[in-house]
């Protein structure tokens, strides 16, 4: 029964090697994703400063194919597709970024509250379920016709149907996390509920949230294109990839370049964002990071 000698300092003094010894080199996909996104962001910032005339109509230069004069060709009103696409990249990126940000903020707010407080949960989540039952595009069309056209209207109209999905995701993550012993431990050392939500639950949900935010960003850019395509997106004096493509739809057989160039850029951008989201998730997750030696 005699206890062993005191376990003073010295028994567990093997300090682990300094963390982040080897920084994991980003893969080719990540580098490509960063390059694409970076280039498009630069274009989005610079293009509107350099290109001023992207709305004037030139009937003498209708539906010209791509050439040295008009790199991406012209549309049915003789407007330069290159100019409109470059300027439009700003609006598409703004829509994507704003929707992702707004959706994440609202989704986190609703999700945290619903996941942690049982009473609010049933009310809030039924409301979210109700919204999810309405097709997103339909809801967006209704909102745009209610609020009138414009860039911010489009952002709101796309954000609203996206929120329930993010809220649901956050709620499910919170439901999993709140049962973990480290949350119980936080309660037992006297941490208040708001502090638990902000310092224990939220940081551990960041991985899932980041992926969701990039997904929302990508789908918002597409949604904006869809709305423009349907004629309820941004007005023609605010070019976006969506409304350039909407014009191209009517002349697809005559002038495929109108829909082709913004379409390719849209696909490349969405692919880049999704790639980055995936790799970001891997890096933000401490368990995956450990496995890969981050």
């Amino acid at each position, binding site marked *: *029964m005699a*206890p*062993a*000698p*005191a*376990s*003073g*300092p*010295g*028994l*567990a*003094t093997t*300090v*682990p090697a300094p*963390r982040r010894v080897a920084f994991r080199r980003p893969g080719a996909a990540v580098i490509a994703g960063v390059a694409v996104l970076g280039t498009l962001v630069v274009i989005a910032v610079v293009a509107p400063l350099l290109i001023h005339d992207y709305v004037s109509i030139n009937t003498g230069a209708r539906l010209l194919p791509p050439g040295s004069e008009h790199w991406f060709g012209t549309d049915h009103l003789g407007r330069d597709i290159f100019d409109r696409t470059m300027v439009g990249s700003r609006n598409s990126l703004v829509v994507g970024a704003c929707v992702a940000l707004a959706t994440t903020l609202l989704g986190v707010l609703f999700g945290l509250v619903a996941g942690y407080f049982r009473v609010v949960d049933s009310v809030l989540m039924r409301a979210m379920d109700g919204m999810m039952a309405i097709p997103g595009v339909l809801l967006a069309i209704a909102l745009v016709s209610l609020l009138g056209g414009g860039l911010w209207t489009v952002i709101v109209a796309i954000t609203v149907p996206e929120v329930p999905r993010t809220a649901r995701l956050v709620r499910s993550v919170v439901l999993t996390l709140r049962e*973990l*012993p*480290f949350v*119980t*431990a*936080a*309660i*037992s*050392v*006297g*941490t*208040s509920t708001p*502090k638990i939500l902000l*310092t*224990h639950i939220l*940081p*551990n949900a960041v991985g899932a949230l980041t992926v969701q935010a990039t997904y929302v960003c990508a789908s918002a850019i597409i949604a904006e294109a869809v709305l423009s395509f349907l004629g309820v997106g941004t007005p023609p004096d605010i070019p976006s990839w969506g409304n350039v493509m909407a014009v191209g739809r009517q002349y697809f057989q005559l002038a495929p370049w109108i829909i082709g160039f913004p379409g390719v850029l849209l696909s490349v951008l969405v692919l880049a964002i999704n790639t980055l989201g995936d790799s970001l998730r891997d890096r933000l997750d*401490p*368990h995956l990071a*450990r496995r890969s030696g981050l």
Partner: protein
Amino acid sequence: MPEAVAVLEVEDVVRHYGPPRRPVRAVDGISLTIRPGETVALVGESGCGKSTLARVILRLEPPTHGRIRLDGEDITELSGAALRDRRRLAQMVFQDPYASLDPRMTVEAIVREPLDNYRVGAPEERRICVAALLRRVGLVEEFAERFPHELSGGQRQRVGIARALALQPKIIIADEPVSALDVSIRAQVINLLMDIQRELGVAMLFVSHDIGVVAHLSHRICVMYLGRMMETGPTETIIRRPQHPYTRALLDAIPVSHPSLRRPRRLLEGTPPSPSNPPQGCRFHPRCGFAQACCRSAMPELRSLGGGTSVACHLAPLADASSTQGDHVQ
């Protein structure tokens, strides 16, 4: 031990889950008193309600019935700020050292959290306090900047112990603190807990399924089965002269270190019945080798046998109670 206010008094605590008509009786009427500086072990098989009792004591879940007094004050009805204020007197060491530390916090942030919550000392002093706590549990200061996933299981459990000590509690509730650890690490962590217990004079409720482990460190042992207390008494008495057949079976289950030490063992068979539908009479009778007719009809109450021992068994004291069982527990 001088008579003082009990650190912890648990009075007829019941915790039921599910529908009131046919509840799962996880804890079904447990009473328990722990005096300052005393280590009490709570022993029983998995699912006997010992972890639930630990959670109820900390008011991590509400008791269905009964009273809990912490350092003389009834905390059964407390909530919000009042409960948080009392909670610092009782701190917990968790079973799973992997899940009980936030993977996104550094060791310093984890140990510091309770100090920040109760505003112990000035913010600059807390850093020094964390370093002292880490040293106390045998970790060098360099650990403060590490993340839990960079530590071994034993090191993590030391961090968990440092966190539990941060508020200088009067009682530590250790819920199977070593069962998730490698056997080679267990002794170190148990010795650490014993040292701390002696040095700081803190009381401890040590929950374990392994009666062999607690024999080394506890002053008293409480044996639980299916939510009920089967036997309680001083460790020495329980180990040497176990009165309840269930206690004897637990002692028989301790492996011996050499084949020559093997003794006739009466091992339990099967699993405990469902706590949602406990057997009539004594809850242990379906698995008891001594069961009589009375065991099947009447539930035995916990009754004192003198010397601080109480047993819930119709047949106690057993005729051959002074067996040689305990000789193997070293």
